[in-house]
């Protein structure tokens, strides 16, 4: 019973949680337990290195390092934290003084034992070696994936490289043979698709059974025509090392059902939608296909309702949050585009080219379940008053129709009325330019709030060049306006991380969400704001937080140093949020951003703490940079 209790405890604590049952049991073989009354000193800096690694079972300790007669506080550690693990890597003196600040019980594990485990367990070694946040985060995925094994190992999608799934015996033929010869080969080998290559054996296209039916038989085309006249190209490629979910992303993005699987420019196989469906059950692709084939808004409604299920499947397969949100974004973009196409059919050719833009979380490609509409419309500058009036009239009806269609398909109205249906937000290019000039040159608190929403803008449909022009113009304005950046900087530091002394979470003090943490406001928003500020400083056009970090990695001094931490912190917060929302959706409760910190696992709490510390560190760097402009 005693042993079981210890195992139960260690099973929740990194790195012991990565150990199998047997190793854990063996570990307990020379485990001991010690009690330190409040105020007692567990180890002295400079004293002999303790023979043990301490795992805090209960209580709390303070870690302090003395430097030149000055005590520097390092950390508070509590239940589930370790003391003395750095000594595994050597050293014969304790590096810090550790004092129990509460009655504390520790499990003691011999250093040699930990060393032995280290040698035989790569995951534990990794834990001790990798940078703090990174290693914790990777293990959270592991943890979450294991939680979700109810789905019967479907996470294969995220662990299996395309190369393993793709059919390997790919039949290929020259693109110069005739259609009939190609059909003959397909029938001889009983295959439904044929890869065509050029003289250098590089794949140039593909024909499928459907092509033979639709483009040849149905059209009465001559069988002796060269096969390249009916092939589909350019074919989308995947690398053998890509994971299957990446392949799905590609298929969704390019709306194809076949991928050429390449290894160092040589064709290694072919991957079909069907292959993926087989290992996956339900496919995001099928939903995209359904969206594309609907011709009325009413027919789109039931399809759009299935999107949430897809998210559930992706989560249960252990998808990273960034992947899940990318797939959601891709599907939502498709849906919006289809709605706009239906609207164009209904209202006829627009009098001027236009561009449909989305911003906010949609613009950042960070949508989760419930996303308000955040959209706007830019149209070409009209040449004469007549066109101007026609455009105003056309786009008024057009945007109202789209707004209502989006509501039907599950995108609630934007409470702040940031929608193209609002005349303010459907304007010709030159008016948009004026908006930005105003926001940037005379930044008031309101203007800044407005503009940051818009700075996450992205074109979804139509004449995307309109947005490119606007973006290029406004970004150069913004990056050169110190005052404007100062406002944005103030915004980025305003949201202090919710950690009191890095010890306990500060949660809502009252109201319906008492004792809960608003993960969007306290965790995600500060990260997004910080990264946006950095992107504006460098005039980067990317809008998603992850893409911004990647783009800034080589260009921004702070990002250069903290890119990995930022990515992991963001990924982690998104994952917490999305998992929380999915759980709420399944329970049928209101979907919101509140999480109960007490329900987090030790590991999750730890990463949350790290994340908040990271936010705080970077906010301090920002304050340092913008010193004169911070109020």
């Amino acid at each position, binding site marked *: 019973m005693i042993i079981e209790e210890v195992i139960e405890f260690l099973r929740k604590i990194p790195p012991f949680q990565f150990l199998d049952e047997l190793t854990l049991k063996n570990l307990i073989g020379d485990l001991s337990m010690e*009690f330190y009354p409040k105020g007692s000193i567990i180890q002295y800096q400079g004293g002999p290195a303790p023979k043990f690694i301490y795992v805090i079972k209960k209580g709390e300790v303070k870690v302090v390092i003395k430097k030149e007669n000055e005590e520097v506080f390092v950390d508070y550690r509590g239940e589930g934290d370790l003391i003395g693990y750095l000594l595994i890597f050597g050293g014969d003196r304790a590096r810090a003084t550790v004092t129990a600040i509460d*009655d504390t019980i520790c499990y003691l594990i011999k250093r040699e034992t930990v060393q032995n485990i280290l040698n035989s367990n790569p995951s534990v070694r990794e834990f001790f070696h990798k940078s703090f946040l990174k290693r914790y985060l990777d293990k959270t995925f592991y943890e979450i994936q294991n939680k979700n094994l109810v789905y019967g190992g479907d996470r294969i999608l995220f662990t299996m490289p395309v190369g393993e799934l793709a059919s390997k015996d790919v039949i290929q033929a020259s693109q110069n043979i005739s259609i009939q010869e190609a059909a003959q080969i397909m029938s001889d080998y009983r295959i439904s698709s044929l890869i065509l290559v050029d003289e250098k054996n590089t794949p140039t296209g593909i024909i499928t059974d459907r092509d033979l039916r639709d483009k040849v038989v149905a059209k009465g085309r001559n069988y002796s025509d060269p096969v390249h006249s009916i092939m589909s190209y350019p074919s989308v490629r995947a690398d053998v090392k890509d994971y299957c979910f990446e392949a799905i992303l590609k298929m969704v993005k390019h709306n194809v059902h076949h991928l050429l699987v390449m290894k160092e420019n040589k064709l290694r196989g072919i991957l079909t939608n069907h292959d993926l469906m087989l290992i996956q059950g339900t496919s995001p692709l099928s939903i995209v296909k359904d969206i594309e084939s609907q011709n009325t808004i009413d027919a789109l409604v039931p399809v759009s309702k299935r999107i949430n299920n897809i998210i559930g499947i992706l989560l249960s397969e252990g998808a990273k949050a960034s992947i899940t949100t990318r797939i959601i974004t891709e599907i939502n973009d498709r849906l919006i585009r289809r709605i706009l196409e239906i609207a164009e059919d209904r209202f006829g050719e627009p009098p001027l080219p236009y561009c449909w833009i989305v911003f906010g979380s949609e613009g950042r490609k960070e949508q989760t379940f419930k996303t308000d509409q955040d959209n706007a419309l830019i149209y070409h500058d009209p040449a004469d008053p007549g066109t101007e009036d026609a455009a105003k009239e056309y786009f008024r009806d057009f945007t109202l129709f789209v707004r209502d269609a989006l509501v039907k398909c599950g995108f609630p109205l934007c409470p702040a009325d940031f929608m193209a249906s609002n005349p303010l937000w459907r304007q010709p290019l030159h008016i948009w330019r004026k908006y930005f000039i105003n926001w940037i040159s005379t930044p008031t608190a309101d203007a800044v709030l407005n503009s940051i929403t818009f700075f996450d803008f992205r074109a979804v449909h139509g004449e995307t060049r309109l947005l490119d022009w606007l973006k290029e113009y406004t970004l150069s304005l913004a990056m050169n306006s110190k005052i404007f950046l100062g406002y944005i900087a103030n915004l980025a530091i305003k949201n202090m991380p919710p950690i009191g002394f890095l010890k306990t979470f500060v949660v809502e003090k009252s109201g319906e969400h008492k004792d809960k943490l608003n993960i969007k406001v306290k965790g995600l928003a500060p990260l997004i704001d910080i990264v946006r500020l950095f992107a504006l400083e460098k005039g980067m056009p990317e809008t998603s937080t992850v893409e911004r970090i990647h783009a800034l990695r080589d260009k921004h001094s702070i990002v250069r140093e903290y890119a990995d931490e930022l990515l992991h912190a963001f990924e982690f917060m998104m994952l917490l949020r999305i998992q929380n929302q999915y759980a709420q959706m399944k329970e049928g409760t209101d979907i919101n951003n509140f999480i109960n910190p007490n329900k987090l696992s030790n590991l999750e709490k730890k990463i949350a703490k790290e994340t908040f510390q990271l936010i705080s560190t970077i906010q301090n760097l920002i304050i340092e940079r913008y010193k004169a402009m911070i109020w």
Partner: protein
Amino acid sequence: MLDFFKIKRDTPLPFKSETLITESTYVVIDTELTGLNLRKDEIISIGAVKMFGQRIDLGDTFHRLIKPSTAFNPESVIVHGITPSDVREAESIDTILSEFIDFCDDNILLGHCILIDINFINREMKRVLGIELRNAAIDTFHVYEWLRHRQSEDRCFASPPKDASLNEIAHCFGISVRRAHDALMDAFITAQLFQRFIPLLGRFGVVSVGDLCRLGNPKGGDLFRKSGEIANF
């Protein structure tokens, strides 16, 4: 092993009384009995954990169920939860005794009201081996009482337990006590209590094993002597 006992059967095992409490090895024991009557009741399980100073060794514990020779007393079944069917497969006390003696080696024994446990174990030892335990023994309840009379203000002593039971005292010291309750678990709880006693004893200058053995003497101890009379103070 048996020869060893026969030769020195009556001399108590030696221990260095000046050894520090924090540097001595202890075996914390507990037994489950069919009742308290030394003439007719029996041991049905023995549990023990080792301690070095304040450190409890969780990897090296001792726990055995014992097949009783007579019928169970239904009342005690309620207390320890061991039913006749549980011990049907268990071994007899004769086999287990020598394993237990090996486990204890020559270390100091600790227990809550340890005299009862020792009396029962000695009765069996005499019957089977013709000798008694020669280890030094300490009653943690006596240690508790000794401390309680000296620091009634301490929060752990401020609200005295309803009774002298191990669970009640453990509760006062914030030691988590499970409802289920066996000899090993009780030995473990006793060990945790002793962990907490050690620093408290230190405040009164009780740091040597000799002093500890005096005030924790199972046969009475010197409960009410003032701390000033302790040898090394």
